[in-house]
């Protein structure tokens, strides 16, 4: 991966995190840590990998993105706005009455939202349906489905994985945001997912692991996965809950934090420092 591209994506990711933080603090609700853990993946998809056209959100041959972990939608919204699907101004209405940007995503083609979500465990199945239809109509089009790790406790995910491998949906990429946490604690304490890679493989998927915050590693993983024909792909992206905020990364922030104005300012400062450090690197 070119250094230039990496720096560009990192810069976007910092700006997206700032927007997400503002959105959640203005709405005074939302899932900050879980949204932050998948920012880099969504940025990578929309600003590098996916074939999309914000001017033609209904373009049939586009790649699709399904955010199965719908509660992380502030990150998707912030990315879509930055990618040019709608005015960034709209972000500040997130979770407000009458807003286009609901607490969990409604299917809204005009905004670039490809699928509904919010009730966990349905995204992989929807993605299967899309991938099956696209395979016959537009074989170049791919479907990228981002699932939470805790969400994999829903049985419907595994029904869908069976469907994916049975139909050899090699245009489907299931990406796991493996931040290790769910509402009441660690996934491995509540109901263990490991050995996760082996589970995916046993279900007939070609599975790779990556760091979900390191763009060169994400780049290489997707490049490697793309070469594998005849199998749906699973990519376990190891991530940090609340990535970018030290407090959250260290587990010192509650899952559903209500942030005071002071806290928001402090957190924005922290993100701005990251952005300043990036500028240093660029020189």
């Amino acid at each position: 991966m070119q250094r230039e591209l990496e720096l560009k994506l990192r810069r976007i990711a910092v700006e997206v995190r700032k927007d997400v933080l503002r959105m959640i603090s203005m709405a005074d609700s939302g899932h900050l840590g879980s949204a932050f853990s998948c920012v880099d993946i969504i940025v990578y998809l929309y600003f590098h990998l996916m074939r999309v056209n914000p001017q033609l959100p209904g373009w049939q041959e586009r790649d699709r993105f399904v955010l199965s972990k719908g509660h992380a939608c502030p990150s998707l919204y912030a990315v879509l706005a930055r990618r040019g699907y709608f005015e960034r101004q709209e972000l500040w209405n997130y979770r407000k009455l009458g807003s286009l940007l609901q607490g969990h995503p409604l299917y809204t083609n005009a905004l670039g939202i490809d699928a509904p979500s919010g009730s966990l465990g349905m995204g992989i199945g929807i993605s299967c349906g899309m991938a099956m239809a696209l395979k016959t109509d537009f074989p170049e089009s791919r479907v990228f489905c981002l699932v939470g790790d805790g969400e994999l406790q829903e049985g419907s995910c595994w029904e869908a994985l069976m469907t994916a491998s049975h139909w050899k949906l090699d245009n489907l990429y299931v990406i796991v945001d493996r931040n290790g946490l769910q509402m009441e604690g660690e996934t491995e304490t509540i109901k263990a997912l490991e050995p996760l890679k082996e589970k995916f493989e046993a279900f007939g998927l070609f599975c790779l692991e990556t760091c979900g915050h390191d763009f060169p590693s994400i780049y290489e993983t997707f490049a490697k996965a793309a070469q594998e024909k005849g199998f749906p792909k699973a990519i376990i992206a190891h991530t940090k809950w609340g990535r970018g905020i030290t407090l959250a990364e260290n587990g010192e922030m509650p899952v559903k934090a209500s942030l005071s104005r002071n806290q928001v300012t402090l957190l924005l400062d922290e993100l701005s420092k990251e952005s300043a450090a990036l500028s240093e690197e660029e020189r």
Partner: protein
Amino acid sequence: MTMEKRSTREALGDGLTELGRLNENVVVIDADVASSTYVKAFADEFPDRYYNVGIAEQNMVEVASGMALAGKKPYAVAFSSFLIGRAYDQIRCCVAMPNLDVKLVATHAGITVGEDGSTHQMLEDLALMRVLPNMNIFVPADYWSARNMIVSSYKNDKPLYIRLGRPEVPLFYSPWDEFHIGGGRIIREGSDVSIVACGIMLFEALRAADILARQGIEAEIIDCYSVKPLPEELIQSSVRRTGCCVVAEEHNGMGGLCGAVAESLGINYPVPLRFVAVKDRFGESGTPAELQEYYSLKYREIVGAVAQVWTTRRR
């Protein structure tokens, strides 16, 4: 009424195959019940557009949703108990909420499934589907209405639940009859009582009407095949003439057609009203004919209910 009989589920296979020939966007998603739902006919003719996702109704509805999002016209087919019961959250979040063009077609609804017993006899599906915003519901009474509803459903792009049964029922409609979302049809005119029925109860209502006529009571019978939206004007204008109403359906008496008619008349034009439906119970094993008797879903109960409402009718 001819005495030739065919099941409404048989219409599913024929209707879908006809649709498949008319339009190549039609796809069928099945939860491994192709033989008993007659969908096999479609599968044989269009193997590339038929997807059996296995015994996985939740996945079936998700896949149908994804297909619709990618521009297909999906028909998801399973038994009513499992399509509506098992996959309710999927129907709610992946079909009704995003208002997608997904047709949910269930066979084996109601008590007349017979010997399989309570797990397989769905008596709550209409209530569950009715309360979902955006959802539309068809309950055909015979083979031709079922077939024509399936074929014409292609023309709209709305979420639609079509409820079909297992047993053979008399052929009543013709191949040329048309059915519309929000429609109903007066199949017998009368001035003394309105009987609103759907599915197999339509035939019981017709038998009841013959008996009532001999006693000097002329029943008006409405085939209320569109349970949602309800043909409110049709029902109200009938009830304004007759002054009383009986509703008959093969479903729990709560929340289905009975509930819909009661809500509508209660608000707009209250009249004496009785239900002939399952009384808040689960089903059990038996032959369809035995069960229909045992669960009080016969013309006799309709006659009895009419006698009750007619004596206190609103004039």
